[in-house]
Protein backbone atom coordinates (compact mmCIF):
# COMPACT_ATOMS: atom_id res chain seq x y z
CA UNK A 1 0.00 0.00 0.00
CA UNK A 2 1.43 3.40 -0.98
CA UNK A 3 1.52 6.33 1.42
CA UNK A 4 -1.20 8.02 -0.63
CA UNK A 5 -3.43 4.95 -0.34
CA UNK A 6 -2.83 4.86 3.41
CA UNK A 7 -3.78 8.53 3.73
CA UNK A 8 -6.93 7.82 1.70
CA UNK A 9 -7.78 5.01 4.11
CA UNK A 10 -7.34 7.33 7.10
CA UNK A 11 -9.57 9.91 5.39
CA UNK A 12 -12.23 7.28 4.77
CA UNK A 13 -11.98 6.06 8.38
CA UNK A 14 -12.38 9.58 9.74
CA UNK A 15 -15.20 10.46 7.29
CA UNK A 16 -13.11 13.16 5.62
CA UNK A 17 -13.17 14.26 1.99
CA UNK A 18 -10.41 12.88 -0.19
CA UNK A 19 -7.37 15.15 -0.26
CA UNK A 20 -8.04 16.67 3.16
CA UNK A 21 -4.99 15.20 4.85
CA UNK A 22 -1.24 15.13 4.25
CA UNK A 23 1.45 13.44 6.32
CA UNK A 24 2.15 16.80 7.98
CA UNK A 25 -1.45 17.51 9.03
CA UNK A 26 -1.63 18.12 12.77
CA UNK A 27 -4.43 15.98 14.23
CA UNK A 28 -5.47 18.61 16.78
CA UNK A 29 -6.35 20.85 13.82
CA UNK A 30 -8.79 18.27 12.41
CA UNK A 31 -12.26 18.88 13.91
CA UNK A 32 -13.43 15.38 13.02
CA UNK A 33 -10.63 13.74 15.04
CA UNK A 34 -12.76 13.03 18.11
CA UNK A 35 -13.21 10.00 20.37
CA UNK A 36 -15.37 8.17 17.81
CA UNK A 37 -12.78 8.84 15.10
CA UNK A 38 -10.13 7.38 17.36
CA UNK A 39 -12.26 4.29 17.89
CA UNK A 40 -12.72 3.98 14.13
CA UNK A 41 -8.97 4.21 13.76
CA UNK A 42 -8.46 1.46 16.34
CA UNK A 43 -10.86 -0.86 14.50
CA UNK A 44 -9.44 -0.05 11.06
CA UNK A 45 -5.85 -0.67 12.20
CA UNK A 46 -6.87 -4.01 13.67
CA UNK A 47 -8.89 -5.06 10.60
CA UNK A 48 -6.50 -3.91 7.89
CA UNK A 49 -3.06 -4.20 9.50
CA UNK A 50 -3.52 -6.50 12.50
CA UNK A 51 -2.16 -3.70 14.68
CA UNK A 52 -3.73 -3.34 18.13
CA UNK A 53 -3.51 0.29 19.14
CA UNK A 54 -3.47 1.11 22.84
CA UNK A 55 -4.74 4.32 24.41
CA UNK A 56 -1.16 5.45 24.99
CA UNK A 57 -0.18 4.95 21.35
CA UNK A 58 -3.26 6.90 20.21
CA UNK A 59 -2.44 9.71 22.62
CA UNK A 60 1.04 9.82 21.11
CA UNK A 61 -0.32 10.57 17.61
CA UNK A 62 0.36 14.23 16.84
CA UNK A 63 0.31 14.22 13.02
CA UNK A 64 -1.08 12.02 10.26
CA UNK A 65 2.53 10.94 9.72
CA UNK A 66 2.54 9.37 13.19
CA UNK A 67 -0.43 7.20 12.17
CA UNK A 68 1.22 6.30 8.86
CA UNK A 69 4.28 5.11 10.78
CA UNK A 70 2.31 2.29 12.44
CA UNK A 71 0.42 1.23 9.27
CA UNK A 72 2.61 -1.70 8.37
Amino acid at each position, binding site marked *: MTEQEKIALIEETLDLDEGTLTADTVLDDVDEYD*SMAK*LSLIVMMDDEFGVKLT*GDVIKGFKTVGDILAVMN
Partner: protein
Amino acid sequence: MINPMDLSGKRILVTGATGGIGSETAVQLSRLGANVVICGRNEKKLQGVFECLEGEGHARYVFDLNDIDSIEGFIKQINDEQGVFNGVAFCAGIAPMRPLKMTKRKNMIEVMDANLFSFIEIVRCITKKNGFADEGSIVAISSTASIQGKQSKVAYSASKAALDGAIRCLVCDLKKKKIRVNSITPCWVNTKMYQGYIDRYPDTFEVQEINEKQYMGVTEPIEVANTAAFLLSDAAKTITGTTVLIDGGMSQG
Protein backbone atom coordinates in the same frame (compact mmCIF):
# COMPACT_ATOMS: atom_id res chain seq x y z
CA MET B 1 -26.19 -21.04 60.65
CA ILE B 2 -28.14 -21.63 57.43
CA ASN B 3 -27.04 -21.25 53.83
CA PRO B 4 -29.97 -20.84 51.43
CA MET B 5 -27.51 -20.80 48.52
CA ASP B 6 -26.08 -24.24 49.37
CA LEU B 7 -25.20 -26.01 46.13
CA SER B 8 -24.05 -29.32 47.59
CA GLY B 9 -24.63 -32.21 45.24
CA LYS B 10 -25.29 -29.99 42.23
CA ARG B 11 -23.16 -30.42 39.11
CA ILE B 12 -22.79 -27.10 37.30
CA LEU B 13 -21.16 -26.30 33.97
CA VAL B 14 -19.40 -22.92 33.85
CA THR B 15 -18.45 -21.66 30.40
CA GLY B 16 -16.05 -18.78 29.87
CA ALA B 17 -14.47 -19.94 33.11
CA THR B 18 -11.18 -18.19 32.45
CA GLY B 19 -12.80 -14.76 32.17
CA GLY B 20 -13.27 -12.29 35.01
CA ILE B 21 -16.89 -13.14 35.78
CA GLY B 22 -16.59 -16.82 34.80
CA SER B 23 -13.61 -17.56 37.03
CA GLU B 24 -15.14 -15.79 40.02
CA THR B 25 -18.41 -17.66 39.46
CA ALA B 26 -16.71 -21.06 39.16
CA VAL B 27 -14.76 -20.57 42.39
CA GLN B 28 -17.75 -19.23 44.31
CA LEU B 29 -19.95 -22.13 43.16
CA SER B 30 -17.29 -24.55 44.41
CA ARG B 31 -17.21 -22.76 47.79
CA LEU B 32 -20.97 -23.28 47.99
CA GLY B 33 -20.52 -26.99 47.54
CA ALA B 34 -21.18 -27.50 43.83
CA ASN B 35 -19.29 -29.92 41.62
CA VAL B 36 -18.05 -27.50 39.01
CA VAL B 37 -17.20 -28.41 35.42
CA ILE B 38 -15.29 -25.52 33.88
CA CYS B 39 -14.54 -24.91 30.24
CA GLY B 40 -12.52 -22.28 28.44
CA ARG B 41 -10.18 -21.83 25.52
CA ASN B 42 -6.86 -21.22 27.26
CA GLU B 43 -5.48 -24.38 28.86
CA LYS B 44 -3.04 -22.60 31.16
CA LYS B 45 -5.60 -20.12 32.44
CA LEU B 46 -8.15 -22.91 32.84
CA GLN B 47 -5.71 -24.90 34.95
CA GLY B 48 -5.14 -21.81 37.09
CA VAL B 49 -8.88 -21.47 37.75
CA PHE B 50 -9.21 -25.22 38.33
CA GLU B 51 -6.57 -25.04 41.06
CA CYS B 52 -8.56 -22.31 42.82
CA LEU B 53 -11.72 -24.46 43.03
CA GLU B 54 -12.49 -25.57 46.57
CA GLY B 55 -13.63 -29.06 47.51
CA GLU B 56 -13.70 -32.19 45.40
CA GLY B 57 -15.40 -33.53 42.31
CA HIS B 58 -14.55 -30.79 39.80
CA ALA B 59 -13.47 -31.17 36.20
CA ARG B 60 -11.99 -29.01 33.45
CA TYR B 61 -12.27 -29.10 29.67
CA VAL B 62 -10.40 -27.02 27.12
CA PHE B 63 -13.03 -26.16 24.57
CA ASP B 64 -13.74 -23.30 22.17
CA LEU B 65 -17.47 -22.52 22.21
CA ASN B 66 -17.11 -20.59 18.97
CA ASP B 67 -16.84 -23.97 17.31
CA ILE B 68 -20.63 -24.18 17.44
CA ASP B 69 -20.88 -27.39 15.43
CA SER B 70 -18.69 -29.21 17.95
CA ILE B 71 -20.79 -28.23 20.99
CA GLU B 72 -23.11 -31.22 20.59
CA GLY B 73 -20.18 -33.64 20.81
CA PHE B 74 -18.66 -31.71 23.69
CA ILE B 75 -21.88 -31.80 25.74
CA LYS B 76 -22.26 -35.52 25.04
CA GLN B 77 -18.69 -36.04 26.26
CA ILE B 78 -19.18 -34.15 29.54
CA ASN B 79 -22.52 -35.90 30.12
CA ASP B 80 -20.84 -39.28 29.55
CA GLU B 81 -17.83 -38.47 31.72
CA GLN B 82 -19.42 -36.33 34.46
CA GLY B 83 -23.07 -37.35 34.51
CA VAL B 84 -26.30 -35.36 34.67
CA PHE B 85 -26.05 -31.60 35.19
CA ASN B 86 -28.13 -29.47 37.55
CA GLY B 87 -26.99 -26.12 36.30
CA VAL B 88 -25.23 -24.05 33.67
CA ALA B 89 -23.56 -20.68 34.16
CA PHE B 90 -22.95 -19.24 30.71
CA CYS B 91 -20.22 -16.67 31.26
CA ALA B 92 -18.53 -16.79 27.87
CA GLY B 93 -18.74 -13.78 25.64
CA ILE B 94 -17.02 -10.97 23.81
CA ALA B 95 -17.71 -7.24 23.97
CA PRO B 96 -16.07 -5.48 21.04
CA MET B 97 -16.67 -1.83 20.16
CA ARG B 98 -17.11 -1.25 16.46
CA PRO B 99 -18.58 1.77 14.69
CA LEU B 100 -21.66 1.06 12.58
CA LYS B 101 -19.91 1.85 9.28
CA MET B 102 -17.36 -0.87 10.06
CA THR B 103 -19.86 -3.45 11.33
CA LYS B 104 -20.19 -5.99 8.55
CA ARG B 105 -22.09 -9.24 8.62
CA LYS B 106 -18.98 -11.25 9.50
CA ASN B 107 -18.42 -9.01 12.54
CA MET B 108 -22.04 -9.52 13.60
CA ILE B 109 -21.75 -13.28 13.18
CA GLU B 110 -18.59 -13.38 15.29
CA VAL B 111 -20.36 -11.65 18.19
CA MET B 112 -23.57 -13.63 17.78
CA ASP B 113 -21.64 -16.92 17.76
CA ALA B 114 -19.83 -16.05 21.00
CA ASN B 115 -22.68 -14.40 22.90
CA LEU B 116 -25.85 -16.07 21.64
CA PHE B 117 -25.62 -19.05 19.30
CA SER B 118 -23.21 -20.98 21.52
CA PHE B 119 -25.53 -20.44 24.51
CA ILE B 120 -28.61 -21.72 22.70
CA GLU B 121 -26.68 -24.68 21.33
CA ILE B 122 -25.44 -25.59 24.83
CA VAL B 123 -28.96 -25.40 26.23
CA ARG B 124 -30.36 -27.40 23.31
CA CYS B 125 -27.82 -30.16 23.78
CA ILE B 126 -27.53 -30.36 27.56
CA THR B 127 -31.31 -30.47 28.13
CA LYS B 128 -31.73 -33.57 26.00
CA LYS B 129 -32.96 -36.71 27.75
CA ASN B 130 -30.69 -37.76 30.64
CA GLY B 131 -28.44 -34.73 30.29
CA PHE B 132 -30.00 -32.29 32.70
CA ALA B 133 -31.89 -32.76 35.96
CA ASP B 134 -35.52 -31.74 36.31
CA GLU B 135 -35.82 -28.42 38.14
CA GLY B 136 -32.27 -27.54 37.15
CA SER B 137 -31.24 -23.95 36.55
CA ILE B 138 -29.53 -22.13 33.69
CA VAL B 139 -28.02 -18.66 34.07
CA ALA B 140 -26.56 -16.52 31.30
CA ILE B 141 -24.52 -13.35 31.73
CA SER B 142 -26.23 -10.66 29.69
CA SER B 143 -25.52 -6.91 29.87
CA THR B 144 -27.25 -3.57 30.29
CA ALA B 145 -26.34 -3.16 26.62
CA SER B 146 -29.44 -5.31 26.00
CA ILE B 147 -31.66 -2.42 27.09
CA GLN B 148 -29.49 0.62 26.55
CA GLY B 149 -28.39 2.14 23.25
CA LYS B 150 -24.70 2.93 22.87
CA GLN B 151 -22.51 4.09 20.02
CA SER B 152 -20.41 1.36 18.42
CA LYS B 153 -22.22 -1.46 20.22
CA VAL B 154 -24.71 -2.60 17.56
CA ALA B 155 -23.50 -6.19 17.45
CA TYR B 156 -22.94 -6.50 21.19
CA SER B 157 -26.27 -4.94 22.17
CA ALA B 158 -28.15 -6.98 19.59
CA SER B 159 -26.55 -10.19 20.88
CA LYS B 160 -27.42 -9.44 24.51
CA ALA B 161 -30.99 -8.32 23.72
CA ALA B 162 -31.40 -11.51 21.71
CA LEU B 163 -30.01 -13.51 24.62
CA ASP B 164 -32.60 -12.04 26.99
CA GLY B 165 -35.32 -12.68 24.41
CA ALA B 166 -34.14 -16.24 23.99
CA ILE B 167 -34.25 -17.09 27.69
CA ARG B 168 -37.95 -16.29 27.88
CA CYS B 169 -38.63 -18.77 25.08
CA LEU B 170 -36.26 -21.38 26.48
CA VAL B 171 -38.29 -21.30 29.69
CA CYS B 172 -41.39 -22.21 27.68
CA ASP B 173 -39.61 -24.95 25.76
CA LEU B 174 -38.23 -26.42 28.99
CA LYS B 175 -41.45 -26.07 30.96
CA LYS B 176 -42.11 -29.79 31.20
CA LYS B 177 -38.83 -30.42 33.04
CA LYS B 178 -39.31 -27.28 35.17
CA ILE B 179 -35.87 -26.08 34.13
CA ARG B 180 -35.38 -22.46 35.10
CA VAL B 181 -33.59 -20.03 32.78
CA ASN B 182 -32.54 -16.53 33.81
CA SER B 183 -29.97 -13.93 32.95
CA ILE B 184 -27.94 -11.40 34.87
CA THR B 185 -27.61 -7.92 33.43
CA PRO B 186 -24.55 -6.15 34.78
CA CYS B 187 -23.22 -2.84 33.60
CA TRP B 188 -19.51 -2.20 34.24
CA VAL B 189 -17.81 -5.03 36.10
CA ASN B 190 -14.25 -4.77 37.39
CA THR B 191 -12.63 -7.40 35.17
CA LYS B 192 -9.62 -7.50 32.87
CA MET B 193 -12.07 -6.85 30.02
CA TYR B 194 -13.10 -3.62 31.75
CA GLN B 195 -9.51 -2.60 32.51
CA GLY B 196 -8.51 -3.30 28.92
CA TYR B 197 -11.41 -1.20 27.76
CA ILE B 198 -10.37 1.72 29.96
CA ASP B 199 -6.81 1.43 28.67
CA ARG B 200 -7.85 1.20 25.08
CA TYR B 201 -10.62 3.76 24.81
CA PRO B 202 -9.73 6.31 27.52
CA ASP B 203 -11.35 9.23 25.76
CA THR B 204 -14.75 7.81 24.85
CA PHE B 205 -17.85 9.23 26.45
CA GLU B 206 -18.60 5.81 27.90
CA VAL B 207 -15.53 5.84 30.10
CA GLN B 208 -16.55 9.23 31.50
CA GLU B 209 -20.05 7.87 31.96
CA ILE B 210 -18.83 5.09 34.25
CA ASN B 211 -17.77 7.55 36.91
CA GLU B 212 -20.71 9.87 36.48
CA LYS B 213 -23.63 7.49 36.14
CA GLN B 214 -22.71 4.20 37.77
CA TYR B 215 -22.71 6.13 41.01
CA MET B 216 -22.64 3.10 43.30
CA GLY B 217 -19.32 2.15 41.76
CA VAL B 218 -18.07 -0.46 39.32
CA THR B 219 -19.49 -3.88 40.21
CA GLU B 220 -17.03 -6.44 41.53
CA PRO B 221 -17.14 -9.88 39.83
CA ILE B 222 -18.01 -11.55 43.14
CA GLU B 223 -21.38 -9.75 43.18
CA VAL B 224 -22.24 -11.19 39.77
CA ALA B 225 -20.97 -14.59 40.93
CA ASN B 226 -23.17 -14.47 44.03
CA THR B 227 -26.19 -13.54 41.93
CA ALA B 228 -25.47 -16.47 39.62
CA ALA B 229 -25.14 -18.75 42.65
CA PHE B 230 -28.47 -17.52 43.98
CA LEU B 231 -30.24 -18.15 40.67
CA LEU B 232 -28.64 -21.60 40.44
CA SER B 233 -29.68 -22.49 43.99
CA ASP B 234 -32.97 -23.73 45.39
CA ALA B 235 -33.36 -20.31 47.04
CA ALA B 236 -34.61 -19.12 43.64
CA LYS B 237 -36.82 -22.14 43.06
CA THR B 238 -39.61 -20.34 41.20
CA ILE B 239 -37.62 -17.48 39.64
CA THR B 240 -37.52 -18.06 35.91
CA GLY B 241 -37.56 -16.21 32.59
CA THR B 242 -36.27 -12.99 34.04
CA THR B 243 -33.12 -10.94 34.33
CA VAL B 244 -31.44 -9.47 37.39
CA LEU B 245 -30.17 -5.96 36.80
CA ILE B 246 -26.84 -5.07 38.48
CA ASP B 247 -25.94 -1.63 37.20
CA GLY B 248 -24.82 0.42 40.20
CA GLY B 249 -27.66 2.85 39.60
CA MET B 250 -26.74 3.52 35.94
CA SER B 251 -30.25 3.12 34.56
CA GLN B 252 -31.75 5.33 37.26
CA GLY B 253 -29.12 8.08 37.05
